């Protein structure tokens, strides 16, 4: 009897221990499998965009890709579907695609471009949004990073914190990502009681949620203004670029140079209220910084901050439909069409114009927009 009871106890203990081991093993196996095969599961927005991008490439394999990456500003403001046909110098049509990501800053932009390259998608041109406030602080992208992104993250000073965030987000993945897993394995069992897992994008990657809403009432607008002010006002008054974010920006630009991808740096539209938050000192530092990037990486800067009137915004820095149309049309006409046609002053591998520009002093390589910007800087510097 005693032996039998001891046997039962041993079996119970073994069951518990094996259960714990098995649960841990299943979690690790699941995380590895998802990380290696379906990065979009932990980052649904990226997953949806990359699926759309693959579909467009499959439809038009002959078209060279013009990729625009950045934050929700560009996600809401850039409407590739509204562009006139972009033709390369040899008459081919380019494929413009909005590759933005909510909350993206330098680190997330870099992570997303690296992911695309790993997946075999190499853009022919890259328009990289620069959010000045995003150079001061960026929320760690480790929560949506996958295993393949870790070597990139590991090169930063925030390694321990990022790894901790990564691991914390991997705890209990079956529960935390159940909706995404079910949509892959058993779609009828998906229950969408909230919209957090639901990413709604248009075929060319622009965001359907933010700007299609034209029904902003005064209260909602006031709330959004207060939010933007809370996040950006102090950053823009006392502007200091985070060295980690500077490094991420430079690494992405270096990577693009290595891959022969011409890059344009883009400052996206802001309303007059938002622009008033910049101090003169901030404008100067930002201008110097961007000019430095342009000089080192041959990436021209386009300052589109004042391209859209205040009535084109749904909050101080996100465009509504009307504003997005204005911005997209001008961006296409003044930047994207010349860029894909090789007529934009850029130092790409095939651009003879750019090679010529190599030999010119950096100030002369400025895009008119950055020249405007420099003029404004001078005026600001003269102010008491």
């Amino acid at each position, binding site marked *: 009897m005693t032996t039998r009871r001891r046997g039962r106890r041993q079996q119970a203990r073994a069951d518990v221990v094996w259960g714990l081991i*098995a649960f841990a093993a299943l979690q690790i196996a699941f995380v590895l499998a998802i990380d290696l095969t379906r990065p979009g599961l932990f980052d649904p927005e990226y997953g949806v965009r990359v699926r759309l991008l693959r579909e467009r490439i499959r439809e038009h394999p002959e078209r060279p890709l013009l990729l625009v990456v950045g934050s929700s500003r560009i996600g809401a403001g850039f409407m590739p579907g509204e562009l006139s046909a972009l033709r390369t110098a040899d008459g081919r049509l380019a494929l413009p695609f909005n590759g933005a990501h909510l909350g993206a800053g330098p680190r997330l932009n870099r992570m997303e471009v690296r992911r695309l390259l790993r997946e075999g998608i190499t853009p022919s041109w890259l328009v990289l949004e620069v959010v000045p406030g995003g150079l001061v602080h960026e929320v760690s992208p480790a929560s949506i990073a996958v295993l393949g992104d870790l070597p990139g993250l590991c090169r930063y000073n925030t390694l321990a914190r990022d790894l901790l965030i990564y691991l914390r987000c991997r705890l209990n993945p079956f529960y935390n990502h159940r909706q995404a897993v079910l949509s892959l394995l058993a779609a009828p069992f998906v*229950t969408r009681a909230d919209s957090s897992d639901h990413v709604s994008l248009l075929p060319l990657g622009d965001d359907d949620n933010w700007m299609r809403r034209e029904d902003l009432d005064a209260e909602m607008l006031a709330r959004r203004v207060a939010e933007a002010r809370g996040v950006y006002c102090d950053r823009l008054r006392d502007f200091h670029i985070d060295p980690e974010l500077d490094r991420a920006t430079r690494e992405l630009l270096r990577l693009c140079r290595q891959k022969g991808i011409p890059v344009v740096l883009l400052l996206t539209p802001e309303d007059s209220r938002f622009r008033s938050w910049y101090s003169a000192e901030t404008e100067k530092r930002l201008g110097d910084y961007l000019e430095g990037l342009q000089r080192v990486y041959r990436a021209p800067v386009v300052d589109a901050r004042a391209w859209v009137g205040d009535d084109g915004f749904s909050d101080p820095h996100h465009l509504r439909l009307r504003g997005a149309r204005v911005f997209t049309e001008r961006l296409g006409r003044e930047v994207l069409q010349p860029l894909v046609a090789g007529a934009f002053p850029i130092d790409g591998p095939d651009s003879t114009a750019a090679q010529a520009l190599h030999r010119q002093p950096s100030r002369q390589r400025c895009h008119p927009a950055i020249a405007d910007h420099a003029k404004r800087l001078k005026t600001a510097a003269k102010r008491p």
Partner: protein
Amino acid sequence: MLFCTQKFLFFFLGVFTVYWLLPWHRLRVWLLLGASYYFYASWNPLLAGLIFLTATLDYTIARALEAGTSPRRRRALLAVSLGANVGLLVYFKYANFFLDSLGDCLRSAGVTVPLPVLSVIVPVGISFYTFEAISYTVDVYRRRIPAERNLANFLLFILFFPHLVAGPIVRARDFLPQVRRRKHWNWVRFALGGRLILLGLFKKLVIADRMALLADPVFSDPTAYGTLVLWMAAVAYAFQVYCDFSGYSDIALGTAHLLGYRLAVNFDMPFAAANITEFWRRWHISLSNWIRDYVFFPLGGSRGSAWRTAGNLLVAMTLCGLWHGAKWPFIAWGLLNGVYMVVHRAFRSWAERRPRLDGLLQTEAGTGLRVALTFLTFVLALVVFRTGSLSEGAAMLGAMFAPQGGLASPVPPLCFWVTAVVVLAAHLLARTEGAWRLWERLPSWLHGFGLAAFLVVTLLLAPVTSQVFLYFQF
């Protein structure tokens, strides 16, 4: 604090760890008492204090009952205890219902009297712990159990957090000896507790909460849906109620096991019952037993004439309905179940006099038919239980039997059918002894992986929004 939330997980892990690290038994009792008080106070600290006070009153009265010899004095003490417990229950749970009903009666008689509406919060689980306290004082009064001498032990009997808010309704004779006994770590118990918690989570998250996604919208507007969807919703609600409540009971039993306590089993595959009497022996067993012991038997049980027995059954089951809440649909549901039981008793005695029919009913096919009929009657009664009023219940039952078109199912029908198959398969598997023996023969690593896979499925299939346990409202 819900059982299937992260907050409870951390709370329980803390209590569990400290509990088994403490070397002193008395300190463990005090720890559980403190944890139970905190558990209840996380809803409402004032009401937690109220339970504390009423439990202390019951403790004192029970001591006096035990010491007393004068029958009159003892009866008076029992009346005080019952009055306090039932009085609080009526005040918190039924006062507004009675006032409303009185107002309706007076209005229909042409008298308009302004009656007050009490602004009270119903304490969570009041019906459960009140019945536990009543059973204790009645048992002490009947001298079936001795009065507990240690106040902390008695308070733990009432407040023990696994059963505090939604049962099972424990009896003092089962629980108090366990409080006194020193607990030793036991792997068998630990494994059993873990399995029960796992099973409870599966029932709650995967079946009950998913079925709520079908039942809730349909019951909120039954006229908008087609007949088939109404039937699906009615069956879905039956699954939801069963898995929600039995899932809670399983988690309660499991957590109690992890702390070295054994609570009464509350459900025993009720949908496999072949008649309504058997159903009530398998459904909410602790409440059924309580009503049997403290209502049905004192009324005379089934010892009298058939009519008297029928009357007793109707009274007992109506009280069972009223226990669920202060609403006419609950009372009608209890009465309906009483009628089912009376009809079943009459049919059984009629069939027993016809051996051929009785033999047919005992065959596999006959049993299957009886199980299906029992389930159907339960589902129909639940329609009355779930709807907001008797007229809504009647309207939905009418629509279920008079084919009508309407909206499609609010969730993919595949979800419903898969769930139905899972519930059916679980009932069949539980009746098969071979399945359990086969499971026991499997090696430990396979047990471990099986349980881990079961947990993974539970986590994956949990809906985005979790529902509060249904029986918290009772």
